[in-house]
Structure formats: C-alpha cells, structure tokens
C-alpha cells in the first residue's frame, strides 16, 4: 500500500492558542483513517490545513511522497484532495448536477445533461442513491451530503476528508454512507473521517489517529484496539480543578421535562423523547458531543422552539401551582411568573446586542417594567455599575458597546444580567467557552452561589473535568436522546465519555 498523504510535525497557532502541536500522521491509498478527538481537540483545524483553508505554521505535507504547499481549496483540488465540511456549501435553488459543476472550468460546451450522465456514472460506481435533477431545497440532509461527496469525486479527488459526516444522519443513512465509503476504499481512495463516535470508528476504519487538546496522542490499528483504550486516549487522565461543590440543600422538583421531542426545519428529530427533572439547589450538568440537541433543549424550555411532543412543567415555589411551558412564548412564560434565566450559547447574536452599550443590554430583561411609556434607565444603569464592579468587567465605562469587550467580559455582562433577575431556574450554555482561567472560576462561583440560593441550575458544558467537579448530576445526551444520567460525585470521565459516544442515533448496527 502506498502512502497517499503524510503530515509531518504540523503546528498551527491562532494568536496565543496552539490549535495543533507537532502532529504527524499518514493515510494510505485504499485505507480509511479515523481522526478521533473531543470537541476542540484540533481535528477540523488539522484537516483544514490539508484542504487549503489554513496554512500550517510549521511542518510539512507530503502527497504521494512529494512535499507540497497547499495554499487554497483550489490547490487542494489540484492535488486531488476533497473535503466534505459539516456545513454544506450548496446553492439551494440549484439541482444536484448544477451544484456539482458549479465553478468548474471544464473544456468544451456546457451541457447539463452530460453532467447528469456523469453524476449517474459516479453514483452507480459507488452505490449512491441520488437524483441529479432534484433541487437541493427538496433534499434531506443525507442527500445533500451525498451531493457534496459527488461534487468532490466529480473533481477527481483521490483523498477524501469527511468532517463528522454522521452527525446529521439517521442510522439507516449512516449505514448507506459507510457502505459507500468502503466501496471507495476498495477503489483505492484514501479516506479520512473526523469523528468522535467510537462504535463508528471501530466498525468502519482501518486505523485510528487520536488528538487531544491539539496534541497528537497516537495511532492504533482498529483491529488491535477497543472502546476503553480509545476513550482513554481521547479524554486523557483526570485533571484536578478544585471547583467548589456543596451538597444540595432541600432539593425540590422545579422543572419537569416530560417526553419532549423536537423536529427541526430540515425534518431531523433533534430532540427525541427527552425526560428529566431539574431540582432547586442543584446543578444539573448536560454533557454531550456538540450538536447533540443541547441548544434545542434549552431553547425549548425558554420558549424559543416548537415541540412536536411532550410537556415542560414548572412548579412555582411562590404560588405552588404547576404550569406547562410548552409552546409558550418567552413573554407568556414570564407573565406566568416563571423566573427563568437563560445564558445562550450565542452571546452576541442572541443574549446581547453587540452595538448597544452595557446599560442598554441590561434593559433587555427589564425594560418592560412599569406602566410608563418611557424607559427607566436609572435601574439598569445601577445594575450595570454593580455588575462591572462586582464581576470586575474590564471596560472604560458602562456606555461602551458590548461588542468592544473581550469574550470573558461579554460573558460576565450576560451572566451578571441573567443572575440579577433573581431566577428560580438558570440555564447556561457553554458559559465558560473561550474564557480564561480566572473568568471561568468566577462563573463557576456565580453558578454555585445561585445553587446555594435555591436556584435550579442547568449547566451545558463541554469540558468533562469541569462537569464532574461542578455538577451534582450529569445528564448525557447523544443524537437528541438521553444516554444516561450519572451522579457527579462518583462518575468517571471514561464513563461519561462512553455515554457521549454511545448515541443510538448514528450506530450502524442498530
């Protein structure tokens, strides 16, 4: 077997952050290599360097034994490299065939029927099931993915990179995809598949390379490894963080989520029969691979997602009544007297308005108060001053637009505001993402304070060490389903890691 592509000592930095440190790996022709790693381990960055989107700071890339420099996606094509990204780059209004030839400078007259023929030929060769004359907007996610793969093959790619291709697929679709990938392998193509689902790795690939936090951990042959070894390579040894955790005092059922399901615009079931209870005075952690339904879950509770099934019951501690929050708007939820605070993942796109100053952002939650036609600015101004001072927000003054603040300070403003509403339920999605150590601990302390005040805290996190040390219970979701709920005090990283990758959604063997 000849080596198709080899990376030697690749390093890539973004500012002070090292995304890839001294990574070396290789793929042979006629081989499927899995690139395994948690979120943020640098898998996609590494592959983007092969497909010409980034350029490595250090190290070399060899294709067919020759050193090359890949400076653009176009040059990657010339080296017969094709990458299928997670976000499809397709024109919705065009047919599959039109998307396949888009931007190509082929010889001869353009005739869409020839293209349709060629697409048929490729489909037959590898067993794709696609109608080249179908418009993209009429297609399922899986069909769109197929178009992307055919696009790459049509351009003659011999090295294919797929970035988490099964994340959006049903089990049946995944099975089909794998069959196609195997056929391509047998045809001599080199395939790299980025993933974090262990069973897929084991069933599909010939070898596995593992990355962890930008570092290259090692490569093993699939036949000679098992889930436990791969999990350990992926998550690493436990790191002591010493985050404070008190025992819950008088926990009461605050929020009862019962059998909720949600179907997104593409028709994919993003939440599938989810049931859990959030209790007062307790931090409930939610762990899972990115895009497993975390965002939809929180947005459903906040009144921003339409549910197809189930109910969300809120026990009001003041009145003792129980209300169903399903299909209520955020305003209706507030009018019911539900004190729900929500720190969304998209801080500047949803939680805050980037062009407004800190005071005006404080008002987002409170501006309706009072009967007056006019805004009351003194309260929000005091709150802004208070937050800036207590949370040590680095800003010239409270009249600074929040988009000018650094990520950590933006988050302090947002969390500060949400906590100031004295909630009974506090939901936070990735509240420490992109924050430095000090800011992160500040956020942990704020969440712990809320817990001591009897708030039901729901914390969506990605760092397992943090989840294990901060949360009382950890709910793991995969593919829109709950794969397990564990006790934070006795759970192990491996246990959670296994649950995360055990999504019933993507398994081939179901």
């Amino acid at each position, binding site marked *: 077997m000849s080596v198709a592509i080899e990376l030697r000592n690749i390093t890539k930095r973004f500012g002070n952050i090292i995304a890839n440190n001294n990574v070396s790996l290789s793929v042979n022709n006629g081989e499927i290599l899995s690139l395994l790693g948690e979120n943020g381990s640098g898998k996609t960055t590494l592959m983007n360097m092969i497909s010409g989107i980034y*350029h*490595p700071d*250090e*190290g*070399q890339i060899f294709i067919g034994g020759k*050193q090359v*420099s890949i*400076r653009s996606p176009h040059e990657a094509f010339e080296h017969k490299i094709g990458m299928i990204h997670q976000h499809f780059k397709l024109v919705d209004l065009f047919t599959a065939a039109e998307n396949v030839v888009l931007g190509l400078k082929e010889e001869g007259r353009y005739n869409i029927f020839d293209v349709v023929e060629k697409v048929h030929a490729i489909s037959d060769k590898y067993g794709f099931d696609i109608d080249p004359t179908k418009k993209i907007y009429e297609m399922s996610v899986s069909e769109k993915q197929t178009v992307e793969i055919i696009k790459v093959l049509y351009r003659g790619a011999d090295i294919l990179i797929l970035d988490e291709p099964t994340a959006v697929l049903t089990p049946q679709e995944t099975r089909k995809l794998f069959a196609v990938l195997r056929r391509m392998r047998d045809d001599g193509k080199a395939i790299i598949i980025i993933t974090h689902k262990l069973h897929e790795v084991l069933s599909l690939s010939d070898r596995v390379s593992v990355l962890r936090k930008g570092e290259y951990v090692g490569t093993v042959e699939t036949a000679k490894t098992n889930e436990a070894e791969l999990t350990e390579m992926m998550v690493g040894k436990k790191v002591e963080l010493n985050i404070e955790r008190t025992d819950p005092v008088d926990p009461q059922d605050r929020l009862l989520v019962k059998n909720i399901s949600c179907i997104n615009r593409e028709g994919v079931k993003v939440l599938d029969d989810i049931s859990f209870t959030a209790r007062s005075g307790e931090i409930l952690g939610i762990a899972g691979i990115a895009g497993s339904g975390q965002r939809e879950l929180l947005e459903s509770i*906040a*009144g*921003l997602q339409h549910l197809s099934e189930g109910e969300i019951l809120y026990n009001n501690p003041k009145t003792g009544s129980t209300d169903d929050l399903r299909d209520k*708007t*955020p*305003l*209706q*939820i*507030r009018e019911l007297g539900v004190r729900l605070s*929500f720190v*969304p993942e*998209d801080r500047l*796109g*949803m*939680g*805050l*308005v*980037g*062009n*407004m100053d800190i005071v*005006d952002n404080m*008002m*987002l*939650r409170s*501006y*309706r108060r009072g009967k*007056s*036609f*006019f*805004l009351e600015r003194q309260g929000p101004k005091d709150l802004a001053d208070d937050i800036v001072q207590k949370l040590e927000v680095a800003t010239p003054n409270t009249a600074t*637009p929040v*988009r*000018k603040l650094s990520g950590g300070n933006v988050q302090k403003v947002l969390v500060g505001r949400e906590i100031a509403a004295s909630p009974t339920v506090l939901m936070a999605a990735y509240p420490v993402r992109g924050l430095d150590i000090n800011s992160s601990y500040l956020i942990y302390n704020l969440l712990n304070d809320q817990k001591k005040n009897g708030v039901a805290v729901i914390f969506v996190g990605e760092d397992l060490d943090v989840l294990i040390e901060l949360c009382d219970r950890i709910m793991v979701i995969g593919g829109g389903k709950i794969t397990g709920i564990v006790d934070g005090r006795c759970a192990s990283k491996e246990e959670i890691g296994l649950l995360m990758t055990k999504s019933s959604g993507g398994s081939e063997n179901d």
Partner: protein
Amino acid sequence: MTDNKKIREPLLRITKRPSIVWWKAWIILAVAILAGFLLGSLVIYALTDCAPVKVFKSLFDGTFGTERRTWFTLQQTAMLLCVSLAVTPAFKMRFWNIGAEGQVLVGALAAVTCIVYIEDMIPNWLLLIIMVGSSVIAGMIWALIPAFFKAKWNTNETLFTLMMNYIAMQLVSFMIMVWVPNGSSVLPTQEFGWLPAILDKKYLFSILVVVVLSVLMYIYLKTTKHGYEIAVVGESENTAKYIGINVKKVILRTLAISGALCGIAGFLIVAGAEHTITKDTVGGNGFTAIIVSWMSKFNPLIMAFSSLLIVFLQEGSSRIAETYSLSDSISDIVTGIVLFFIIGCEFFINYKVNVRHSVKAAKEDK
C-alpha cells in the same frame, strides 16, 4: 521558517474595523463632503464658467441671499426633514420602506380631498384638523399595507413599497381628472385650508411643526420603550425573540407611525405651501429622505443638518443654473455627486484598508 512558500498577501487587504473614534469618523465624512463639493463645483465650472471659488458664494447667495430665499430654503429643509423623520423608525428596524414618496402623496391627497369637498362649510381651524386627521390615516394605510404582508408572508418590502408610490401617483392623477374633468387637468390653487401665517411668515407654522416633530422623534427613539424595541429588532431579530418581543407587532406599529408622519408631511405640503396637488407634489423628497435618514445614522438632530445640506445644494445650484439660463436639473447632478461621496465614505469608517507591508518585509520573511 520551513521551506514552505509563504502565502503572498494581496496588496490591499480589507478588514472590518471593530470601532472607530468618533472624531475620525467625522473627519472622514467632512473630507468626503468637501471632495464632493470640489468635484461638484468643478462640474459647475465646466458647464457655466462660474469659477469654483465663486460657486460656493453663489450657492450661498442662491439659498440665503434674500429673506425670501432664506424662508424658502428653510421651508424646503423642513419638508425634507419631516419625510426623513418619517422613514427613520422603519429604517432603524431594518425595514426598507422606500415608499415614503407615495405615503406623503396620499397624505397630501387626503388633505386636498378635504379642502375640495368641505371648502368653507366649516371654520378653517376645524377644516385643518380634519385635514390632519385624514392625512395621517391615509399615510398610515399606505404604509401598513406592505407592512402587513411583510409580517404575514415576509413579502419583499423594498419592491412592494416602491410599487405603492406609483399607485399613489396614479391615484392623484385620477382624482385630479375627477375634479377637473376638462381643460387643463391642473387643480387650481385652493382658497381654503391654509395654515395660519405666524408673524406674517407664511412658512413659519410648518417649520415649527417639523421642529417639534424632530424633537418628539428624537425622544421617541431614544427614551421610550417603543424606541428601544425598534432598536433591538433592527439590531438582531434573534435577540428580540429571546427577550420575548413580538416582532410582527413591532413592525406593524412602527410602520403605522412611519406612515402617519408621512401623512403629516403631505398635509404640511398642501396646507403650508402648495394648496394644490399634482402627482409630482412630493418631488422626489420621499427618495431623498431615505438618503438623508441613512447618512444621518437615523439621528433626528443630524438629519436637520443633512436636510439643510441637500436643500442648500439643490436650491443653490438651481439659482446658478438660472443665472446662466441653463436647466435647473444641474442641481440634481451636483447633489448626486456629493451624495456619492458621502455614500462612499461610509466604507472608510466601517472598514480598514491594510496596505501590504513593504516588499522588503516580505523578502525578509523568506
């Protein structure tokens, strides 16, 4: 360095500025206006031999040279400002209402209709009140129709409001034909429904109304809950939903206000200046107002100056053309040139152009 070739940076690389110091933005704007003036006066010079240095003096003379001209300039400014105020709340919400021309026109039509049918059956003050009411309602309806479809089916509001303008114009032509079926098809100047002159100044009343409206609009946008909601919807519809704003309701409410103000502008044109109507009564102010509002960053106070600048250019260059007995359309050319510079300079406020570091530095890299 490795022996990989360094990616060659393009000569000019454009990046978004995170922010710009306010005075730098003002300097860029001032330079742009100045450059526009310069090119404009060169054009005037080329066409009229009026020396560029004299152009500015002539412009000034044409707009503020006599008391009559000054009042006329102020009246024109007030009208343009009034329409600019009207379109502002919608724009701030990112609703591209380019139908102000039509909304003002139906406002004017409503006012004229009241005059034509009521005449002196009731006292003038009562007639004026009825006129205002009808104008406001007419403008509102004209703005709410596209807003309704925008809220319901997300119908493209730019194209919709554009078409509404011409329907309004034909409606005016139609009404004129109804009132003056034979002969000139020009509606003669009406005797009734005139705004009272204050201190003997014909235009003062409408100017004062617009001053009051500017202040009110400033207050509305800056200090009320409505204004705040408009800003949030305009900045981020996602955030608006997150905090529970009913976006459709805000769209309809804001367009009702926008249309009502256009109606008032139409009323002021009829009752304060024209006392008749043609389909060109608004004279493109509905379109110019869009530019005024946009270049003033939706700030009603800056809009007063922008309106004055444009009227100054238009009226001033018309006078120059008049002196040389040329077509007064030269004013549109000069205004256009200055506007292009103002529109273009926005780029240098929002983006930074990075020139590639000298070739030497690139070589050192290698």
